């Protein structure tokens, strides 16, 4: 599903790794900047200095824009910061990819979002308030929750969650990880990748860990 072949960027590398369909992986980046750089490279937004980045067997940096867009419709990305469309409300932001790709009706999306909020321990009232507001009024953790719900709303083959737990209470962190784990197990063949700068939040999480090297030493893998 994902193949990094000697990928080097200004922040990390060289990195070689393979993530198969159905895998559950945590990538430990060391710093927020490195985590963001890794996600941008994997999402086809920042070309590496060298190496090959394959996603679903396609080289992300040599395919056409149309092919890239088609490929990304199979991926759910929840960035650690930003990633919201400023001229849409929070609810419209969450609904956009699912509605655009015709993956869910509005009613299905409402049910899915309500279930997600409940699983994350957010009250109905708080959830409604969060969804009705502008993206500018969201607290950082609220933005993370909405991006996470949005990433799963298209039922993707690959989910990339960047720094998803930082800024959350311990209880909410646990809820978010349990919800992601449940969705991972429910969908056969889906790969889920947690990208974090600090491993402590995911220490007990049952996933294969990949540590990004900041400089020349090759990536360290532990199963």
């Amino acid at each position: 599903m994902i193949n990094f072949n000697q990928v080097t960027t200004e922040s990390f590398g060289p990195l070689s790794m393979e993530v198969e369909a159905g895998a559950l992986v945590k990538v430990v980046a060391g710093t927020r900047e490195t985590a963001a750089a890794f996600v941008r490279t994997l999402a086809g937004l920042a070309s590496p200095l060298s190496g090959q980045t394959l996603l679903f067997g396609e080289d992300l940096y040599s395919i056409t824009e149309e092919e890239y867009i088609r490929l990304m419709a199979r991926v759910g990305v929840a960035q650690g910061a930003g990633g919201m469309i400023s001229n849409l409300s929070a609810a419209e932001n969450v609904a956009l990819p699912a509605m655009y790709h015709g993956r869910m009706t509005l009613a299905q999306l409402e049910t899915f979002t309500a279930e997600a909020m409940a699983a994350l321990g957010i009250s109905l009232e708080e959830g409604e308030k969060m969804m009705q507001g502008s993206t500018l009024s969201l607290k950082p953790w609220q933005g993370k929750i909405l991006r996470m719900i949005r990433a799963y709303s298209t039922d993707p083959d690959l989910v990339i969650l960047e720094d998803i737990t930082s800024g959350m209470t311990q209880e909410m962190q646990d809820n978010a990880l349990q919800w992601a784990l449940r969705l991972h197990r429910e969908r056969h063949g889906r790969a889920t990748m947690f990208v974090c700068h600090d491993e402590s939040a995911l220490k007990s999480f049952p996933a294969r860990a990949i540590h990004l090297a900041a400089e020349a030493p090759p990536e360290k893998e532990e199963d």
Partner: protein
Amino acid sequence: MEKINFFDDRLPGRRLMTYLRFLMFIPGHLHAFGRKPGRQVLMRQIYFTTVEQLRRITAVAAVTGMVVITQISQALGYDPALIGKALLWLAVRELGPLITAILVMSSSGAAITSELASMKINREFDALRTMGIDPMEYLVLPRMISAIASVLLLNVYFQAAAILGGGALASLWSGISFQQHVLSVFSALTVFDMSLSMAKSLVFGMAVAAVACSHGALVGQSITDIPRAIIGAQMRALFIFFLSDGLISYMAL
């Protein structure tokens, strides 16, 4: 999307090719409006670029009509046939398309450029791409279609407002009957005049669409590039309006 580099700004031919490339994007991607979010953006844009401009267009058109009628009456005396033709030439064939395009470019065009530019700089284009949504289809295409439709529709509205509003205001001012004004214009109106006016509007609308959208979508990396993009778009659009107006009028002689 291809990034326009520093040298492209110095080559007007390259700019023109960029505008044409943006326009050529439209025919092959109309299927994007088969999706509900695409239709929603289009409807919202048509509302912003057309409906919200009506009050401003009404005022400018009525005053333009009144000025034309009173000036011609004062200079050449009251001749309904002459006034009808003068209003037709100025309001329908020349000023209608031109003023409409300038008003749309200076309001909606500037808004489109600044909105797209700030979204690009805030990496919202990238956010859409990671969702498998083409920003050209979702953000740029509806704005281009609405700009073209807006200039066409508002031109027709401007002409009607200039003839009716100008006639009404001038009849109060000069004592010439409103009915006489309107009849004199409509008796001089031909299909050729209307076609010429609509052809100009179509070209101006395409210019608004391509210039406003391309300057916004291809903005640089810095926040200070936004005002530069808006000013650049306004200046280039004005140049295109006057140049193409002259060319079309010359070709229609």
